[in-house]
């Protein structure tokens, strides 16, 4: 075997702390290495041309590139060696940037380590075999999980692209957080007026199947061929019959049911349609509040329903959908501010969240758009807004900026002035973050045209005082204490990962960060991809986002799916496990540890043997660790290849 080694400078990224010339020279001493050189940028066009030239000139059978992480450029160099006429798996990468030059300053030690990593790669390459990808057909349907604005955009764009879409939403209606908002910044246009038509489009698009009041139960399969089980929760109403007339809600005697859609400001009925623009416009019963379902007597809605749609015996239903790709758009949830003692910990009725304030502002909300204090229904005069509640606070494990609170607080001060011209808004803030188009101008307008008084500082306490509230804080620009009496306090609660986000991530086999937000494939270059093929992200499930960014991501994710589905077949990864029939004793330990269900037990001449379903195998290697006698081996990561690497590093 003729091996060529290319040691990349990566400009000064590697060459700054690694003697790349010395590493190339050391490489020449390793077995079967016939050519070694250093190169300025191996990934650049001349760098790749140099590799191809060397393969031809020195009749190389395999190539080692010592440069950055394989996650960055392994695919690049595999294409390079393929262009040079070699099999793409006759290539190994030694990571001497992230693993060497970026983490150590001692040039001698770095050079030494880089040479050892090259040695490992050479020993591995010597045992590589040519692998060829197979092909498999794909199912060109897509599932969108989450019917907020990002999911709606993704579903509509996919459907417009000709794909069949299954949209799954946990709540009874799509619309997400945006459907609860009164107006949107920076144009102050009506949220439901711009979202509503999109929601109607979802309902009317023949390519879209909508499952609301539904959750993803399990996900099996792989890119192109996912089997997703969806739990359609009982609505206790037959939606094929329900016309959305609302007679049932009018007659329901259980009128003190907490109103989820209105953020628990005000009450609703046990059977209801969450809001007038709901899609689908169907009634559903809150089982915990329904007299019939809890106490076994009532049935007022049955009598009221002209369509005979009420079904108290309805049960959850599991449907299986086969799709080729999944777009996750599960959004975010709001931070629970009650853990902050200084804001009253939830004890004061007139200390409310910004989302509750949106419902007070909304014409379809519990107060029909009149701003009234929850405690006594009076119009407030002085309103204090406190920003960064649950954002940028390390002490509660939320060090990140939620991004949109500065903007919606400014919007809320403007709307407050529009609703109550005599009112005065005060905003306690840490910094103003308004980097979007027209955003900073919007903040200025709130301050200058609408007279919101911005105070840079934190609030230390909220105390009740004569039916009002005394807000004690600090003005850090003036360097003194401030005390403001107010009728209403609005907390700009930050965003946190949606409840159940990590559990859904486990089902989808995608990763998530410390806070539960899903990890994108690359923070810059793969913002809507995940590291699991066929699963894409849109909107705030990946990190807090405002509406324009969520819509943009929904469209981006849809375009990725359309790109994926532009081919009829996908190449299967040949880095999968396979079983040596002679060595397998049929103990099935591999089957029990396989997270993908890729191993089945078969009969071979009367003996039980394991067998790998190559298209299902994801190449994780669990089975190879579990197999005591080494009968199951993962191609490109065989025991012997790994042992050769260990022996190269730990000679004796």
């Amino acid at each position, binding site marked *: 075997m003729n091996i060529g080694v290319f040691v990349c400078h990566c400009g000064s990224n590697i060459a700054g702390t690694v003697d790349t010339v010395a590493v190339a020279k050391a490489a020449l001493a390793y077995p079967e290495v016939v050519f070694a050189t250093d190169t300025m940028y191996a990934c650049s066009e001349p760098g790749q041309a140099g590799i191809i030239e060397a393969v031809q000139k020195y009749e190389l059978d395999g190539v080692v590139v010592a440069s950055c992480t394989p996650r960055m450029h392994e695919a690049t160099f595999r294409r390079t060696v393929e262009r040079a006429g070699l099999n793409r798996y006759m290539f190994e990468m030694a990571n001497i940037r992230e693993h060497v030059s970026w983490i150590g300053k001692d040039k001698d030690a770095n050079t030494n380590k880089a040479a050892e990593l090259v040695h490992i790669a050479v020993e591995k390459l010597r045992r590589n075999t040519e692998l060829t990808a197979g092909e498999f057909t794909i199912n060109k349907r897509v599932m969108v999980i989450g019917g907020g604005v990002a999911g709606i955009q993704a579903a509509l764009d996919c459907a417009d692209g000709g794909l069949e879409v299954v949209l799954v939403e946990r709540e009874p209606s799509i619309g997400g957080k945006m459907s609860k908002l009164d107006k949107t910044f920076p144009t102050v246009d009506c949220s439901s007026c711009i979202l509503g038509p999109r929601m109607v489009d979802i309902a009317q698009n023949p390519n879209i199947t909508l499952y609301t009041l539904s959750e993803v139960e399990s996900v099996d399969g792989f890119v192109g061929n996912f089997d997703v089980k969806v739990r359609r929760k009982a609505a206790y109403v037959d939606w094929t019959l329900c016309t959305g007339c609302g007679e049932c809600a009018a007659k329901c005697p259980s009128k003190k049911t907490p109103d989820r859609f209105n953020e628990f400001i005000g009450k609703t009925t046990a059977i209801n349609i969450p809001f007038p623009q709901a899609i689908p416009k169907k009634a559903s019963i809150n089982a915990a509040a329904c007299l019939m379902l809890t106490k076994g007597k009532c049935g007022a809605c049955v009598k009221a329903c002209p369509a005979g749609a009420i079904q108290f015996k309805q049960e959850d239903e599991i449907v299986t959908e086969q799709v080729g790709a999944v777009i996750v758009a599960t959004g975010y949830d709001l931070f629970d501010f009650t853990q902050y003692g200084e804001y009253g910990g939830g004890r004061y009725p007139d200390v409310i969240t910004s989302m509750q304030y949106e419902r007070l502002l909304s014409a379809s909300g519990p107060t029909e758009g009149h701003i009234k204090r929850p405690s006594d229904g009076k119009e407030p005069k002085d309103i204090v807004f406190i920003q960064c509640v649950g954002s940028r606070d390390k002490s509660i494990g939320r060090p990140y900026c939620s991004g949109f609170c500065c903007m919606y607080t400014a919007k809320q001060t403007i709307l407050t002035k529009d609703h109550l011209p005599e009112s005065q808004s005060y905003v306690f803030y840490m910094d103003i973050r308004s980097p979007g188009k027209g955003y900073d101008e919007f903040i200025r307008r709130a301050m200058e045209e609408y007279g919101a008084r911005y105070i840079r500082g934190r609030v230390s306490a909220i105390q009740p005082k004569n039916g009002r509230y005394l807000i004690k804080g600090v003005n850090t620009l003036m360097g003194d204490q401030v005390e403001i009496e107010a009728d209403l306090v609005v907390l700009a609660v930050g965003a946190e990962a949606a409840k159940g986000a990590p559990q859904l991530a*486990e089902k989808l086999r995608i990763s998530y960060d410390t806070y539960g937000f899903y990890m994108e494939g690359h923070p810059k270059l793969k913002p809507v991809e995940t590291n699991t093929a066929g699963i894409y992200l849109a909107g705030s499930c990946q990190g807090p986002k405002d509406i324009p960014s969520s819509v943009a991501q929904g469209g981006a994710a849809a375009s990725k799916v359309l790109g994926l589905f532009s081919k009829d077949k996908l190449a299967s990864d040949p880095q999968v496990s396979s079983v040596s029939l002679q060595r397998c004793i049929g*103990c099935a330990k591999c089957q029990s*540890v396989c997270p993908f269900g890729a191993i089945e037990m078969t009969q071979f001449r009367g003996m039980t043997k394991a067998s790998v379903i190559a298209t299902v195998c994801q190449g994780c290697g669990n089975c190879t660790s579990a197999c*005591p006698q080494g009968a199951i081996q993962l191609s490109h990561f065989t025991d012997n290849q790994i042992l050769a690497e260990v022996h190269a590093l730990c000679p004796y």
Partner: protein
Amino acid sequence: MGSQLEDLKTAIRQALPDLDVVIAWAAGPDGLAHTPLFITSESDVDLVQWDPRCSQNLAGYLPGLRGKKVGIVAKGCDARSITELLQEKLIDREQLTVFGLHCQGALDPEKIAAMADCGRYVRSAEINGGELKIVSSKGACAISLENGLLAKCFRCTGADAQPCDQFIGEHGAPPVLKDAPATTLDRLEAMSMEERFQFWEEQMGQCIRCYACRSACPLCVCQDHCAAQSREPHWVDQTDHPREKLMFQAMHALHTAGRCTECGECERACPVGLPIMTMKQALNRQIKALFDYEAGLDSEKTPPLFQFRENEEHIKERKW
């Protein structure tokens, strides 16, 4: 005990027509330990023995007899191996008939031979009351049974065989023993890393790589396909060096992690007396701490290393 033996023989005689083979114990060549007996005809039943000299765990023969209808006589600890084999689906419950016994402790022949200073070849040995009376070339002596018990008896997790199809005799608690001898693991844990390494280097220097430990292990079911003797994959080479021997023992320990019931067959079989079960005990401690699991006690459970879970109850990777 005499009637228990007769009851056992009666039970085996009754079951034998429906079974291909029954595995029990018969008198051994040296009187200090009984040896396995494979009963295929009724005349064999007369040879069956049952007393504290039935030290060997017979469960190791079961995977090799898969496909046959097998009866097996088991002590409480032997049944743990049977449970583990059933959990791993290496034997079939419906093909198996377990004759369960209540055990009052089994003798360690090497320990007795050392105590009696008589070597393994004695002229006669018989159990009388609480003593083993031995006659050898060195004369006669009596060893208290309690002093001659296997180390594992001091950590008995249940004297009654479970699973069991026919229980012979009375159910009962494990014998109450005091003064458990210090184990090699206890001694090792008091040592520094360097001392431990030196200890194993010395011990492994004596290993003759006969693989008796592996062949005796009831859970080493790969046998002829053992990774230690394979070139593809080539985990261990043939160099006569403590490094390779330790590598083999480490593999054996890792392959039995969370499965080993500490039956002690590996040490019983070792011709040079190496304390190789210590490695398995050390791993079992880790398994207990990480997964709250002990092998062979509950046939409903899956051994922790043979399942894939997103989250382990006792390993706090994430806080949610």
